[in-house]
């Protein structure tokens, strides 16, 4: 895919909106609601009567807000974007699984599918298109390898 400033801009728009949505959600869950309260309210209480061990509900419910905060921030600024998108994608799958346990016909339109669309778009675009990011800046600063090492030596 030919890299152009328009395509780089398109990737920037998708990545920053996606990162922002997760980062803001993570901020709210960690600093306003509190990770422990998030775990109790959204994981332990609703799923206490399911087959899922309570200790795992506490663990995941407490960890997920921090993951959203950290990896939402890294996607927002475009640092280690690929790995961060994998983590956020796993969170989306995990959240979908949780919703489906309680409501087998759960409609994912409001939260999960829009974020999945943005995530898929950024993940499927060549990383070289992500110019306006920390990763892009670091890539630009790397020295380019010689095209023909033998020709370089001859010089």
């Amino acid at each position, binding site marked *: 895919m030919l890299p*152009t*400033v*328009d*395509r780089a*801009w*398109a990737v*920037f*728009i*998708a990545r*920053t*909106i996606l990162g*922002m*949505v997760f*980062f*803001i*959600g993570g*901020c*709210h*869950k960690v600093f*306003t*609601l509190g990770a422990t309260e*998030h775990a109790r309210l*959204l994981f332990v209480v609703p799923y206490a009567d399911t087959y899922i061990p309570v200790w795992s509900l506490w663990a995941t419910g407490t960890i997920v807000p921090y993951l959203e905060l950290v990896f939402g921030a890294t996607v927002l600024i475009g640092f280690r974007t690929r790995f961060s998108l994998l983590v956020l994608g796993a969170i989306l799958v995990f959240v979908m699984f949780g919703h489906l346990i309680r409501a087998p016909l759960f409609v994912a*339109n*409001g*939260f999960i599918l*829009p974020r999945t*669309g*943005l995530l898929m*778009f950024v993940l499927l675009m060549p990383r070289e298109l992500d110019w306006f990011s920390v990763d892009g800046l670091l890539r630009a600063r790397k020295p380019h390898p010689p095209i023909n090492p033998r020709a370089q030596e001859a010089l």
Partner: protein
Amino acid sequence: MIAPTPIERAWAVFVPRAIVGLMFVFAGANKVFTIGPRAYAEMVHEHSHMVQFFPWQIVDHVAFATGFVEIALGALLTIGFKTRWAARLLGGMMVLVAAGYGLAGLVDPVGGVTAMDTRAVNTYILPRAMLLILVLMLPEEDDLFTAEKLLGR
């Protein structure tokens, strides 16, 4: 496999471009001619929580100008003049709007655990962002139905 014809590709670019351009034109027209720019600025001042983060003069002036900017850039996008610049600027505007809703969500988490207003994100920000992304991703040379092409530029 039969590749799409130039007219088909041009249409594939024109449809999302015109739709998103019209969305912005009408949203801007609503702010300017129905609500009024001064009243809209007052609404933003009162309800958006932006004055908690930025000087009120900046918030008021940006809110006042928003409708006019939307009309202008939306019109450029719709008729196909300086299309790429209009799409980039509107895309940047969507990023800033998302940031605004994000900050507002931290103050008043209307979106519940997601903090951001889910309705605003899903019905306002994301559709516009997706269409702009689509327009920017498609090759400029396929965009035949534009005022620029008509004027021979």
